């Protein structure tokens, strides 16, 4: 059983896209998944609603979706997580009580970051938040990765170089490129590997992340 939190303090970096794709992929691996929408925008809940409609004849979303806020993220997930194989929590892009509550119980904290200066700069404050959370949650492992990355050019590597220097965060070398397949999937409530026609590069990237999150052995820094 693992609790995976997709967070950070910057909005619009694709947290919900990663959270929903990972939740769907985990459920396709026959795992009983709980997807927690702890973002006030409720996009993960919207995704699930659309997914239920799209897959109405195939049994619906394939995972359990709930919406929680504030300290209820901690108390309810502590109660519900043991009843599921894995829990994926999508939190909003601000330092909220909900995000902190999620950090206090997370096994894995994934911080997607756009390869731009303003976004990369937020990693230091996120690392500080993780350090505070460690006082109450020793098991937390915090990873950052580039999301909505450029298909090519030097910005990705420059951003990665800065991200690698942030103490307390482990940089995952699996950039997810800004691809239309993710947006098309979101519109239909589908993960990228469920989309037709398929985008092999998008699938390859998200599968690499999935393996690092769910099947890799625990990392240490």
């Amino acid at each position, binding site marked *: 059983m693992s609790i995976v939190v997709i967070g950070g303090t910057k909005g619009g970096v694709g947290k919900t896209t990663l959270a929903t794709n990972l939740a769907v992929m985990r459920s396709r691996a026959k795992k009983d998944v709980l997807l927690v929408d702890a973002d006030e925008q409720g996009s993960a809940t919207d995704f699930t609603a659309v997914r239920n409609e799209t897959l109405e004849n195939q049994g619906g979303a394939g995972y359990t979706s709930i919406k929680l*806020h504030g300290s209820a993220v901690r108390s309810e997930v502590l109660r519900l997580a043991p009843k599921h194989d894995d829990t994926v929590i999508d939190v909003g892009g601000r330092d909220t009580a909900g995000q902190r509550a999620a950090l206090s119980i997370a096994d894995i904290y994934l911080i997607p970051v756009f390869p731009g200066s303003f976004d990369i700069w937020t990693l230091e404050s996120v690392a500080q938040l993780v350090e505070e959370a460690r006082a109450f949650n020793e098991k937390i492992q915090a990873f950052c990765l580039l999301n909505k990355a450029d298909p090519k050019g030097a910005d990705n590597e420059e951003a990665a170089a800065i991200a690698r220097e942030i103490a307390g965060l482990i940089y995952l070398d699996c950039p997810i490129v800004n691809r239309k397949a993710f947006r098309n999937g979101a519109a239909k409530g589908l993960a990228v590997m469920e989309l037709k026609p398929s985008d092999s590069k998008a699938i390859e990237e998200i599968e690499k992340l999935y393996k690092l999150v769910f099947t890799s052995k625990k990392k240490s820094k």
Partner: protein
Amino acid sequence: MAIRRKPSTVEEFINAGGSPAGVSVSPSPEVQMSPEAPKLEKKEEETIAVTLRVPKDLLAELDAAAKNCRPKRSRNSWILEAIIEKLEQENKSE
């Protein structure tokens, strides 16, 4: 340099985070109560969500002030402190 104490309990750590929808912002200098609006965290304490309309430049000033506080304040905490200070001031002058 001010020294910030680490939160001593998990509740303290969680509550140090900002409220997700307690304060939303649009550029108009009015305060509007919306009791039907977000029911977030209602269970935890007796709070009510308020939609606060703030001019953009004032908000930027507010955020900068909150950020420069030691320890750093969330926008919500900063506004709450300002309200409390104002109320105390009003009460004193009565």
